[in-house]
């Protein structure tokens, strides 16, 4: 009897402590908790540290994390807690009923510190026993898990948990539903949180019923958008906007979704109009929303090809972000609070910035931006492709700068006087590249953007692609198109889980690819590099990290939580069938990424390891679906590799029949594409946007001119329409090219081999013929090249070379003199 009354008294005190806590009377709450220690020591300890955490205005989570670690049976230092990926034994062996709040709180802090995988593991453990918890915790677990899934790009899993919410809390998820009404979600000192996030749209933060309903509606709209279920999204966002308007809530979050919707539908200009319609005063009231808007508008400008404008917006977004997260009032820059860190989107902004800079040809700055976000996106193949592109672009730019000294001039210099005067021909021979290597040793060249590093990046991308588990049967999925590509937010390995039915029905799940095989392959690729620099060691670490990441996610298949992610068709939200993107898109994208990685690797290896370049070129040629322009490049690269390996016979064989078919195929494709796109996101012009002497022939040499390279300038905000080569479109996205004339070899545009490519083919054919001592055929090939591009320096040099080989010194001199227009012109007149 006395035990029972003790229990009742303890429960009364516990309730009182909670009320004090909620009312921000933290000292009082701590006093009461002390009294409760004998009856419930562990939870008292936890709540005590929660009070202290709030007393520090959420700035110092150390005490709290230490308490959680102690509850977890661990005596580890606080710093290691967020990184630790394994769960303590009691977690995995028995359900975490007793310390569910401790687990949840750790998940919250892990999320705020951007340890999303850790958060995900913790929450999935809770979610697998969700029925055992009170509604308030269930709702919070759901809400956080949903956000984490979207951050990890797992929209299909988010759909599953959303379906669960709708079943569990019909009153919150549907305003029309009136039965079993009250969901009490309060659990933190309201005043403290309100003061910390005073400038945050209320319905995203407050927990009363009306706000919760708006929040759920907003989350539903987010889900539909991520699942690309546009009809449902439109309906939902319309109702959300009207409800927000009716209740006087901020429209900014909903408008941001609408902007994304318009972008996804390809209505970029409409999206931009919507963005500009958001009232300035609302943005000033919500600084974090302003930061998000600036980033999103930056993305719109990237899509519109206005890279300079995009960079301006993204820089502003970054500045705005700093003011949101950091307290500027003090001398030292301090984070406002731990929850504020969850608003830190600097990695996302950096990635977008990197894309813009890459298109602008600011390769070093682009690489800096990508490196900044590499930790977040390191398991995304795209990030590594972009870095490899920076290296290739940088290499081409360096070549171009070297060549710019002799624009339109085949003569390097003239030496000697009188009868001893000699012309020194500018020779782009590979041996002369040694000087560049020397430059790099002397620190002239950015060592990190070397071709070796580029090759490593491309290899890493390939490794990640190989590791990516094969997708479950596409027909059984009616989910999203988002999971791996929406954000290159890494963790692509996690994207395998299939959707589930609303009744959580079960089937067997397709297993990911054999892990060991991928690891071996990765190691093999790593060892191929033959480079022992620290960059490359760190790259291997990244691969190992990627292994770990995917292991964590592969483990998911064995955890109870994700065992529910395995069923038939995805009907995550009641009877509302969500239609999703086609898996074909994924396959297309995967093929594009693979071919891009291989072509970049091949390019990088040509200077360093022709054997690997040849192997890579052959791999590209073996691919069943490969873009014609990439196939064309594979042939060109393969031929060059074969020649440098001393196998011109094979090179000639590789060059002759197939490549003409590819050119023909590509030109047919161009005819079928038909239009010239006026707003490619590569505004700086694509492949050799040059003046022409005849309608069909470019006049400016792609291999020598750098006059079209674009730099940050106000004028270039306006998208250029000088791009004469049709840009290839994929999923409604026009494709970028390197800024023109950055490569001595020029750039092959997506979907267009064009005159440049064809001329390149004839020049290389001529070189192979020379190596085979077939000077006549070489001369014929170079005539074809010159007929296509009469001022191509490569073709003219080759023509000079052939004349010299034929002993026609006067003929060679004629070519050199006819194209000598710069300073040395006078001295060459006879």
């Amino acid at each position, binding site marked *: 009897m006395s035990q029972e009354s003790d*229990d009742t008294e303890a*429960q009364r005190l516990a309730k009182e402590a*909670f009320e004090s806590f*909620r009312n921000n009377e933290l000292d009082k709450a701590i006093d009461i908790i002390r009294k409760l220690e004998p*009856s419930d020591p562990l*939870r008292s300890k936890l709540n005590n540290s*929660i009070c202290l955490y709030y007393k520090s205005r959420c700035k110092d989570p150390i005490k*709290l994390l230490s308490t959680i670690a102690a509850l977890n049976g661990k005596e580890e230092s606080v710093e290691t807690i967020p990184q630790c990926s394994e769960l303590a034994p009691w977690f995995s062996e028995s*359900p975490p009923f007793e310390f569910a*709040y401790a687990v*949840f709180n750790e998940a919250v802090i892990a999320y*705020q510190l951007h340890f999303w995988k850790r958060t995900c593991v913790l929450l999935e453990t809770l979610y697998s*026993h969700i*029925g055992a918890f009170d509604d308030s915790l269930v709702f919070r677990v759901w*809400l956080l898990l949903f*956000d984490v899934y979207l951050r990890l790009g797992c929209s299909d899993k988010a759909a599953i948990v959303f379906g669960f919410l709708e*079943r569990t809390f019909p009153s919150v998820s549907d305003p029309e539903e009136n039965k079993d009404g009250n969901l009490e979600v309060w*659990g933190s000192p309201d005043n403290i949180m309100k003061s910390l996030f005073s400038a945050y749209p209320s319905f*995203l933060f407050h927990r009363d019923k009306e706000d919760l309903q708006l929040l759920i509606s907003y989350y539903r709209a987010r889900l539909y958008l991520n699942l690309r279920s546009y009809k449902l999204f439109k309906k939902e966002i319309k109702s959300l906007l009207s409800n927000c308007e009716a209740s006087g809530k901020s429209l900014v979050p909903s408008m*941001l979704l609408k902007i994304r919707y318009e972008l996804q539908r390809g209505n970029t200009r409409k999206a931009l109009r919507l963005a500009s319609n958001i009232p300035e005063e609302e943005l000033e009231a919500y600084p974090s929303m302003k930061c*998000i808007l600036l980033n999103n508008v930056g*993305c719109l400008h*990237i899509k519109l090809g206005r890279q300079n404008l995009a960079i301006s917006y993204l820089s502003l977004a970054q500045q705005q972000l700093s003011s949101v997260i950091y307290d500027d009032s003090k001398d030292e820059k301090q984070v406002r609070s731990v929850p504020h860190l969850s608003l830190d989107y600097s990695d996302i902004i950096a990635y977008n910035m990197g894309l813009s800079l890459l298109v602008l040809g600011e390769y070093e700055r682009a690489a800096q931006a990508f490196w900044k976000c590499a930790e977040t996106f390191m398991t995304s193949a795209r990030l590594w492709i972009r870095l490899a*592109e920076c290296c290739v672009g940088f290499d081409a730019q360096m070549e171009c700068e070297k060549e710019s000294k002799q624009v339109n001039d085949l003569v390097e210099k003239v030496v*000697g*006087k009188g*009868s001893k005067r*000699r012309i*020194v*021909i500018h*020779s*782009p*021979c590979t041996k002369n590249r040694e000087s560049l290597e020397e430059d790099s040793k002397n620190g002239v060249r950015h060592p990190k953007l070397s071709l070796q590093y580029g090759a490593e990046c491309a290899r890493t991308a390939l490794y990640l692609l190989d590791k990516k588990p094969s997708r479950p049967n596409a027909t059984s999925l009616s989910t999203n198109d988002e999971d791996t590509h*929406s954000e290159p937010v890494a963790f692509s390995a996690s994207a395998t889980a299939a959707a589930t039915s609303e*009744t*959580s029905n*079960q089937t067997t799940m397709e297993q990911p690819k054999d892990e060991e095989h991928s690891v071996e392959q990765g190691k093999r690729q790593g060892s191929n590099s033959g480079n022992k620099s620290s960059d490359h060691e760190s790259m291997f670490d990244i691969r190992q990290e990627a292994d770990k990441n995917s292991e964590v996610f592969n483990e998911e298949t064995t955890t109870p939580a994700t065992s529910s992610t395995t069923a038939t068709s995805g009907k995550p939200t009641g009877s509302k069938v969500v239609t999703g993107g086609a898996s074909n898109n994924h396959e297309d*994208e995967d093929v*594009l990424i693979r071919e891009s990685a291989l072509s*970049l690797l091949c390019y990088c290896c040509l200077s360093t390891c022709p054997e690997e370049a040849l192997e890579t070129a052959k791999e590209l040629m073996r691919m069943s679906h490969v873009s014609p*322009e*990439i196939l064309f*490049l594979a042939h060109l690269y393969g031929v060059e590799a074969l*020649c*440098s390996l001393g196998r011109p016979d094979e090179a000639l064989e590789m060059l002759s029949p197939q490549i003409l078919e590819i050119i023909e195929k590509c030109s047919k494709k161009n005819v079928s594409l038909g239009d010239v796109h006026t707003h490619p996101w*590569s505004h700086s012009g694509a492949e050799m946007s040059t003046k022409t002497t005849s309608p069909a022939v470019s006049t400016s040499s792609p*291999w020598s001119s750098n006059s079209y390279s674009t730099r940050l300038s106000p004028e270039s905000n306006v998208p250029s329409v000088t791009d004469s080569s049709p840009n290839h479109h*994929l999923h409604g*996205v*026009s494709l970028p*090219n390197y800024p023109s004339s950055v490569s001595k070899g020029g750039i*092959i545009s*997506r979907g267009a081999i064009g005159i440049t490519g064809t001329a*390149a083919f004839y*020049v290389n054919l001529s070189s192979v013929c020379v*190596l085979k001592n077939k000077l006549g055929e070489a001369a014929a090939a170079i005539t074809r090249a010159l007929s296509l591009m009469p001022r191509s320096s490569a073709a003219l040099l080759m023509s000079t*070379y052939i004349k*010299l080989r034929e002993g026609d010194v006067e003929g*060679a001199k004629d070519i*050199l003199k006819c194209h000598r227009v710069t300073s040395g012109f006078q001295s060459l007149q006879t």
Partner: protein
Amino acid sequence: MQQSYRKLVATLVHIIYKVEKPWRELKTELEQYLSEEQEETEWKQLNTLTCLSSLIRDGLLDTLEHRLNVIFLLFSQVKVETKLTAPMLVLLELLETRPPEEQLILVWLLKNKEKRADLCSKSAKEIVELLKRETKAINEEHFQNDKSQLLELFKNWKAQQKPTELATISGIVPDPVTNLTGSPQPSSNDNEESFLENLEDVFIHDFDPVFVRPAPPLLPLGNDELLLIDPETIHEVVWDKTLCEKLPEVEVLKDLINKASKGPLQPEQQQTLISLIENPRVLHRCGLTPAKLPDLVENNPVVAIEILLKFVSSNKISEYFSALVNMDMSLHSMEVVNRLTTAVELPPEFIQMYISNCIHSCENIRDKYTQNRLVRLVCVFLQSLIKNKIVNVQDLFIEVQAFCIEFSRIREAASLFRLLKNLE
């Protein structure tokens, strides 16, 4: 041109211009110069070779005497005539390209010891005179044989080289200033100083066949590569509301579940248990793991059904289903499955697997009586599933048909067979 290199060129030109001195002396002079500073010998040797080969290869020497001096100086760098060292290779290349009189000297130097000794004692001027006298030697078989042998040697060496290496030519084209008629202006001054002044620089510049290497295009912007941000709610650390919370019902329920797994419960116990599981928080802590389910099904199928129906919306239900499928077939398990099929929509895979399991169990029972009993049960169960359209007949047609034929002696099997035929 660097000062040291300039000095080297001047020294070499100075030696080359000594056309009246015997070659032996020129050799000594060159060797003296090369060995002057020990630490620079290697650099000097390399650049001497560069300078000499460049002077003759690029046609910078107008007079035969000077050219012959260069040939001899190059030869003086050859240590062993049979070894294809760099100076040797330069000489062999000259043998291929130079005029006949120079070829003759080259062959004599490289193949004819007597002639070589004789030539070394002569000056360039004397050798030119000698050549004038012995022009017919060019057509002699002996010379041609020696020349062919040397060229063969060079050819063999070339066969081992990469075509790219062999394709390299000099990237320096002579372009003497011409007069108004277009013919080259004759060198006004033939002395050493003016030669050096006009020369300006001497170097080797290779010219290789050009390979155009266009860079690959940028990877197209991915479907969702542009990272737009959606605002999220604020997630906060929350108070543990289970502080001092006691759930005495959990212990009662655990006790009852244990009892129910061991034997049939009394009706009132059963009633208590069913009322307790109404509270999901208590239900989820009842301690019934999938491993314990078969015992519960066998001893208290009604309780098992009630619990499973409560668990059906939980994430754990799949584990309970698989425990049910894999347990031994019995009347009770069939009763549980049958009730479940009517109450909730079960995954078709689960039902199919259960039916297959039942059929196999029937086939494997030895005792005829028990087998007949079970077959009847299975047939009735299947008929119920088919009539209620819970199972798609087509998915199991062959297996069930074979089962019916095997047990056609049993009335229920025959009627199931008829049902199948009707549906077909």
